[in-house]
């Protein structure tokens, strides 16, 4: 029953992700991806990672995709002109590449049979693993340096985005 529900959630994710690629209008693509990310957050919760699920909703669906929508509306791109048949070779090779990649990925999955590496000797209580308190204990004890590096990276990205998007002074 749990597996059935989980597979339904994943099917919804894949469906809306496919819709994202197929839809022509970029705003429709973004909205479709929002739905896919919400479903993915549900999947994370079912996999015992409620904190990451909340992050997925807040940061991905809430901040990043809203930023995409904001830029799309800022640029005010109307329906892009249909540029059909412009690059048939490119489209053909692109689809061949995507299909070959998917086949390779499936082949790798089949041959490995989702084999697990050696599991942790004493697995901690899996139910409490994804809770913010236990996650924070690992994050701030073992990965503090990485955490600080991320904060510097975010500051650099902030400055970079500001410099790049700034209006050029008229000289």
């Amino acid at each position, binding site marked *: 029953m749990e597996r059935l529900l989980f597979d339904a959630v994943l099917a919804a994710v894949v469906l809306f992700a496919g819709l994202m690629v197929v839809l022509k209008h970029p705003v429709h693509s973004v909205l479709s991806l929002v739905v*896919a990310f919400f479903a993915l957050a549900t999947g*994370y919760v079912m996999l015992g990672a409620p904190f990451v699920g909340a992050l997925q909703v807040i940061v991905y669906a809430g901040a990043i995709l809203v930023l995409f929508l904001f*830029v799309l509306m800022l640029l005010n791109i109307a329906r892009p002109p249909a540029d059909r048949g412009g690059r048939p070779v490119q489209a053909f090779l692109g689809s061949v590449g995507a299909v070959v990649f998917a086949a390779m*990925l499936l082949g790798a999955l089949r041959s490995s049979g989702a084999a697990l590496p050696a599991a942790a000797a004493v697995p901690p209580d899996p139910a409490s693993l994804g809770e913010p308190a*236990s996650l924070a204990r690992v994050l701030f004890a073992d990965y503090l340096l990485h955490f600080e590096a991320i904060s510097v990276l975010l500051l650099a990205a902030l400055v970079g985005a500001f410099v790049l998007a700034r209006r050029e002074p008229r000289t």
Partner: protein
Amino acid sequence: MIGSIPLSDVLLASAALFSIGIAGALLRRNAIQIFLSIELMMNAANLALIGYGAALGTAEGQIIVFFVIAIAAAEAAVGLAIFVALFRHTETIDVNKITLLKW
């Protein structure tokens, strides 16, 4: 296995999402949609990490996903700033028409 969910289901969905992202990045000609496809590929990798983390009973999978989400936020901010600057210069975000670095 996680509860009654087999890891293979998670990995299959992850592979499907990554392939969809590859197809989108290769076939779409709108820079924003290519960027969205790249975000989708990152989420496919995140799903695999969460699945393996849950199957192995370690917190490391979720920690890595935490970092990936932070880096994705930084990447989205800089990438979209580049698109805004590009649109100011060329009035388009169709990657077929942007040939500044071509010759």
